[in-house]
C-alpha cells in the first residue's frame, strides 16, 4: 500500500433547516456528515457506500471544498485543505477532481462538448489553444467518444454519453485524486464495464487515487480495494473489500448485502426490506443511529453511540454487539 494521500478527521457538515419565509427561523440541523474519519492510500480505490441521503455526496463535496465543513480537517498530500487560502485552493483544485452523480445538471447546456472538456485547461491556463484542441480530442477518444461529438451540445447526448463527457473533463488536468460520485450509475452495463476498465487503466498509468461513491455493490466489490459503509452521516463499517463482502460485521452492512437484487428471473421473489422508516438526519435516533431498524438492538444501543473498533486486519465496525 502506498502512503496516505488523504486523511479526513472528524469531518462534519450540518445544514440549517429554516422555517417561515419572512421571519425565517432556524428549526434544526441536518447532520449530513457527522464525524467522519478515514484515510485513503495513494493509488487505491476507496469505496463509500450507504443509504440514499446518508451523506456520501456531501463528503465528496467537502473534500473538493465545494462546501465549507462545520468542523474537522481534510489533509490532502500533507496540507489541511480547510485552512488554505482561495488562491492556494485554486492550485490544489487541479489535483483533486470530481465526477458528478448527475450528468444532466453538471454540464453547461450552452457550451459545446469541446468547450466543456477544455474548460479546466482554460481556467488553469494550460497549453496553447492548438494544444488544447488536440488534448480534448485525445480525451474524448479515451472515454469512447469521437471528435465528431466535440462540436455538439450536451442535450444531444444520452445520459450515458454525458457521463463520459464529465469523465473526460475530470481527466483533463491529470489530477492525483478523483472523487467519483456515482460515475457509472447512469450507464448501461456494457458501457459501465468499459468505463470501469478505463478508470482502472488510468489508475495504473497515472497512479491515480479514487474515492468511489456508489450504491451499486457489485461495482464497488469489483473496483474498490477498501470500502466504508455510511449510515446517517457516520461510518458504521470500514474494511478491505473481501472482508466486507465475506464477513460483514455491522447489521446494517448485512442488510445492505442482503438486499442486492438477484440477476435470475427464476428466483423472482420479494426482497427482504429493512424494517422501519428511514430515520431522518434532521432528528436522528439516539445512541446507535441504526437501532430503530436493527433486529439485534439491545438497551445500550438506544442510549450509547458505538465507536469504531478494530476487529483485525484494518476491519473497523461500530456496533455494541461485538
Amino acid at each position: 500500500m502506498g502512503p496516505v494521500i488523504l486523511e479526513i478527521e472528524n469531518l462534519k457538515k450540518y445544514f440549517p433547516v429554516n422555517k417561515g419565509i419572512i421571519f425565517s427561523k432556524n428549526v434544526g440541523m441536518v447532520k449530513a456528515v457527522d464525524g467522519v474519519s478515514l484515510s485513503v492510500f495513494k493509488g487505491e480505490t476507496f469505496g463509500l457506500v450507504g443509504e440514499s441521503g446518508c451523506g456520501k455526496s456531501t463528503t465528496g463535496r467537502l473534500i473538493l471544498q465545494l462546501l465549507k465543513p462545520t468542523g474537522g480537517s481534510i489533509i490532502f498530500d500533507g496540507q489541511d485543505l480547510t485552512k488554505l487560502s482561495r488562491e492556494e485552493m485554486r492550485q490544489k483544485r487541479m489535483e483533486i477532481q470530481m465526477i458528478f452523480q448527475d450528468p444532466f445538471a453538471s454540464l453547461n447546456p450552452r457550451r459545446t462538448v469541446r468547450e466543456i472538456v477544455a474548460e479546466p485547461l482554460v481556467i488553469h491556463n494550460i497549453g496553447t489553444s492548438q494544444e488544447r484542441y488536440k488534448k480534448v480530442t485525445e480525451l474524448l477518444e479515451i472515454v469512447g467518444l469521437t471528435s465528431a461529438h466535440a462540436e455538439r451540445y450536451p442535450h444531444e447526448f444520452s445520459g450515458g454519453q454525458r457521463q463520459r463527457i464529465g469523465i473526460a473533463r475530470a481527466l483533463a488536468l491529470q489530477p492525483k485524486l478523483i472523487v467519483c460520485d456515482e460515475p457509472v450509475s447512469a450507464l448501461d452495463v456494457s458501457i459501465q464495464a468499459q468505463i470501469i476498465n478505463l478508470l482502472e487503466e488510468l489508475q495504473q498509468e497515472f497512479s491515480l487515487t479514487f474515492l468511489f461513491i456508489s450504491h451499486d455493490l457489485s461495482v464497488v466489490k469489483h473496483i474498490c480495494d477498501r470500502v466504508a459503509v455510511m449510515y446517517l452521516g457516520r461510518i458504521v463499517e470500514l474494511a478491505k473489500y473481501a472482508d466486507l463482502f465475506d464477513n460483514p460485521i455491522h447489521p446494517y452492512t448485512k442488510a445492505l448485502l442482503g438486499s442486492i437484487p438477484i440477476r435470475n428471473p427464476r428466483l423472482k421473489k420479494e426482497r427482504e426490506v429493512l424494517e422501519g422508516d428511514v430515520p431522518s438526519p434532521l432528528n436522528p435516533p439516539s445512541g446507535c443511529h441504526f437501532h430503530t431498524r436493527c433486529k439485534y438492538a439491545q438497551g445500550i444501543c438506544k442510549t450509547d453511540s458505538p465507536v469504531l473498533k478494530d476487529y483485525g486486519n484494518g476491519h473497523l465496525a461500530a456496533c455494541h454487539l461485538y
Partner: protein
Amino acid sequence: MSNELLRVTDLRTYFAAGPDPAKAVDGVTFSLNEGETLGIVGESGSGKSVTAMSIMRLIPNPPGKIVSGEIIFSGKNLLQLSEAAMRRIRGNEISMIFQDPMTALNPSFTIGNQIAEVIELHQKMTSKEAGKVAVEMLKMVGIPEAEERAKQYPHQFSGGMRQRAMIAMALSCKPKLLIADEPTTALDVTVQAQILNLMKKLQKELNTSIIMITHDLGVVAETCDYVAVMYAGRCVEYSDTVTLFDNPLHPYTWGLLASQPNLDSKEKQKLKTIKGNPPDLRNLPLGCNFAERCPHAQHICFEKEPQLSEIENNHLTACHFSKEWLSSRGEVS
C-alpha cells in the same frame, strides 16, 4: 386472458440538426398488456428514453419529430390526439418517472407543493387535502420526516431523495400506464427494494402496466414479465424475461449479459466489454447496426439489415443468424 393496453408499431423519432437527422428511434415495435411489466434495456444512447418521451408526446420539436408509427393506448392512437387531449392523458392515465429528476422538478417550488399540485389537478381535491396526500406519498417512498421535508426545495434533497419525490409524484395520480425511466438508478439497494415493492403493490391494486427502463439486470429479473433489448434505435430482441436470461439469441444481448460484474467471483478479473462504439445515429450503416462490433458478423451483416422476426414462440430477434443460434443453443456465446 389479459387485455392489451399499449401497442407501439414501427415508431420512428428523429432529431434534425443539419442535413442528416439522428435516427434516435428507428422502427420500434412492442406491445404491453394490462397489469404487466415490460423492461427496456440496452446501450446508453440506444433510444430508450426517446421511446418513452415519444409515448408521452414530450419530444422537443424542433429538433425532434416523430416521423412515423402508431402508438395505440386503450384503443386510441396517441399520435393523432390534440395537444389538449394528450395533456389530459399525461399525468392521469399515463405518468412518467423521468431519468433526470431535475427536468420534472421545478427548482423554485417546494417538493410538497409540486406533488400536491399534480394531485389537485388530477384528483379534484382541495389544496389542503392534496397537501396531506402529498406528505403521505412522500412517506410511502421512504422520505423520513415527510411533513418537514415537503417544505424543502429540490436542491435541499439528495440525489436519491429527488428521485423518490418524483416517484411519489408519478404514483400519486394512479396511472394505467407508468413509464419508469431508470427509477432506481440513484438509489441504494435497500431503498430500491422498497420502491420496487411499492410499484408492484400499486400494480396489483390498480392493474397498472409498467414500462421499466433500466440497465440494472437484477431489476429486470426481479420485476419484468417481458424484455425488449434496444441497440442504436432498434429493438434487437424481445422475449419473456426467463427466456432472455436463459436463451438470448442476439449477439448484442450476449455481450450485455456478459458485461456485468459478478458478485460471486472471488478473484478480481477485468470486466468483459463489447469492443468499439455504437454507430453514429446520423449515419447508420447499411446492414446490421451492430455488425461493426459483432464477433459473429459475416458478409451479409454489412450488406443487409436484419428484420425483427419471431424465431420461436413469442421470442423475436433481429439477427441474420438467430435460427442458427437457436439450433446450436449452448455452443455459441
